[in-house]
């Protein structure tokens, strides 16, 4: 049974992505007691699946390593993985939270030596690669996974393979009897940092993501660049593994669209500009990038980056929301059909890979949060101190990493204000 010491001066942070980790660390480094919940087996969230950040083109794992070191060193934070909030009752300064914890079947004793993975043969689609690759039934989610403990997939836990894994573990870290448990804990304030998920591209029917192999999403493209990713870091066409020569990037794929997400997801323009630099970096003059856009939203200093990309002769910009994609059956190339609205030019352009810059959708739409929050109809949390529950990062608005962290830092202070009031009242 997981036991957690938490009081009404504890800050509960829901979500262990960069926003949740930031909120938890900033509060803990102010001396506050924090419980950090993550529904996945490891922290890091969406950013750990990115190859580089714009506009610096630096690596997300670099900052993640620092945050993990802060986390390991800080005794004020209690991290629970594979844990999700079931219900929140009570009021600011006095919340009671029920948390459901799924079994990992691997205890703290795990040394991440990897013997269990050797003993397990069956494979499953790799969530970390959006299913573009397979992973073992016993696995470490990724190189920088923290806690650095393996996970035994529930689908093998009950099988002979589970037994084999148990037998293979020299430190006796595998516990096949682990059950799902529900615990309740106290909290004075709650920071809700459940982040975002990529909009389901299959719903954008005219683009045929569900029908055409060479139509992929921007997040899948990121995974391709990871040397430990599904294509060992190589930009490839899913249909035949060939190197693309003429890549299209479609903006607002699911954003600014009443049929999908009404909001502008803010990051997609920059993500695409960044991804054209991947193409340039890896394929040089052997590949062209075309960006189909409505407005390029490269705010503040980031516009320098936008101008730099525009200077690349291999990158062209077309002001147009692509109307439809059709496929050439023989080559699996794709035709993008539409109209360049700058002067009305019809096009039916051939590309051999299409990347949909998919929008950001709240992982947990604010309306469905099992607690009293102020939500707008787009599914984001709006600031309302009276609730004692504060959105951090993308649960509060479509934000880039930098703004999400800024927002999470602010959320940490708002939570501290609540628990300090409690402390004051209790003397």
């Amino acid at each position, binding site marked *: 049974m997981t036991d957690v010491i938490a009081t009404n001066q504890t800050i509960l942070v829901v979500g262990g992505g960069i926003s949740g980790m930031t909120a938890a660390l900033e509060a803990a480094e102010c001396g506050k007691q924090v419980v950090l919940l993550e529904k996945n087996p490891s922290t890091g969230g969406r950013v750990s699946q990115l190859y580089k950040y714009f506009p610096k083109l630096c690596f997300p794992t670099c900052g993640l390593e620092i945050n993990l070191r802060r986390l390991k060193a800080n005794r004020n934070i209690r991290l629970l993985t594979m844990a999700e909030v079931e219900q929140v009752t009570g009021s600011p300064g006095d919340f009671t939270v029920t948390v459901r914890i799924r079994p990992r079947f691997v205890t703290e004793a795990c040394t991440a030596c990897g013997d269990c993975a050797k003993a397990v043969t069956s494979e499953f689609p790799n969530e970390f690669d959006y299913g573009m690759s397979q992973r073992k039934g016993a696995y470490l989610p990724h190189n920088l996974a923290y806690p650095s403990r393996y996970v035994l997939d529930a689908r093998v836990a009950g099988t002979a393979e589970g037994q084999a894994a148990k037998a293979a573990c020299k430190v006796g870290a595998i516990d096949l009897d682990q059950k799902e448990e529900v615990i309740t804990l106290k909290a004075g304030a709650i920071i809700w940092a459940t982040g975002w998920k990529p909009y389901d591209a299959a719903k954008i029917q005219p683009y045929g993501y569900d029908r055409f192999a060479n139509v992929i999403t921007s997040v899948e493209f990121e995974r391709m660049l990871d040397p430990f990713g599904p294509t060992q870091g190589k930009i490839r066409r899913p249909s035949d593994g060939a190197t693309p020569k003429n890549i299209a990037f479609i903006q*607002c794929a699911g954003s600014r669209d009443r049929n999908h997400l009404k909001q502008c997801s803010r990051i997609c323009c920059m993500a695409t500009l960044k991804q054209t630099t991947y193409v340039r970096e890896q394929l040089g003059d052997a590949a062209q990038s075309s960006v189909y856009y409505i407005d390029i939203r490269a705010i503040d200093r980031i516009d320098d980056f936008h101008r730099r990309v525009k200077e690349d002769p291999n990158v062209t910009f077309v002001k*147009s929301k692509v109307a439809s994609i059709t496929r050439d059956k023989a080559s699996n190339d794709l035709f993008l059909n539409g109209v360049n609205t700058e002067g009305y030019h019809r096009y039916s352009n051939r590309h051999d890979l299409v990347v949909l810059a998919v929008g950001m959708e709240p992982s947990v739409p604010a309306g469905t949060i099992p607690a009293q929050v102020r939500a707008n109809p787009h599914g984001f949390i709006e600031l309302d101190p009276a609730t004692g529950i504060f959105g951090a990062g993308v649960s509060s608005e479509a934000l880039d990493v930098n703004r999400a962290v800024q927002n999470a830092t602010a959320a940490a202070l708002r939570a501290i204000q609540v628990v300090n009031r409690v402390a004051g009242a209790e003397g």
Partner: protein
Amino acid sequence: MNDINRSMLEQYRNRFLREVEANVEEGQWVKMCMQCGVCAGSCPMGPYWEHPPQELFMMIRAGKREEVLSSTSMWMCTSCYNCIVRCPRELPITHIMHGLATYAKRLGLVPKDQPTAKFAQKFWNNLTKKGRVNELKLGLALYFMNGFAEGVKTSMKMQDVGLGMLKSKRLDPLEILGGHGVKDKAGFQAMLKKAEEIEMAKIAKNQAAGG
């Protein structure tokens, strides 16, 4: 230039957008377009549009009244509704195209011999006469709509179709005798007359008020 057109020009001066909003079916949506062009790219008749919908909307905002209303573009609409379902901004583009067509026709700005304009008018006349469409009459009228000589050619060209359809009983030969229409013709026509009145009254009001 007919009278309505003259006085509308008077009233709205350069504010064509307001004119469209006040007088064109679903015209109040025009301002919501963000120029993404998805409608233009989705239209089956795309290649034949002089100005695609999104461009028409921009022209309306830019006050290009004459160019818009005398354009053949909106007459290219096949009512396939592809633009409507894809428009990210919810514009009922098909209806706006129909509305622009209707308005252009009321203002007498339709290009001469615009085939769809003529056909649509014939269809309407045919329908309003009896409340139902007499396909064969419509067909014949249609084939002769470009004048006699042209008509002969067309009907020759279409003969096989006509005959084929007769053979396959798609057209009831009796219809040539005009057998078939609504019983309450009086009420039916009164209804349409009233509807027309109400709309023209509105337009008259706008002529006076300038929207």
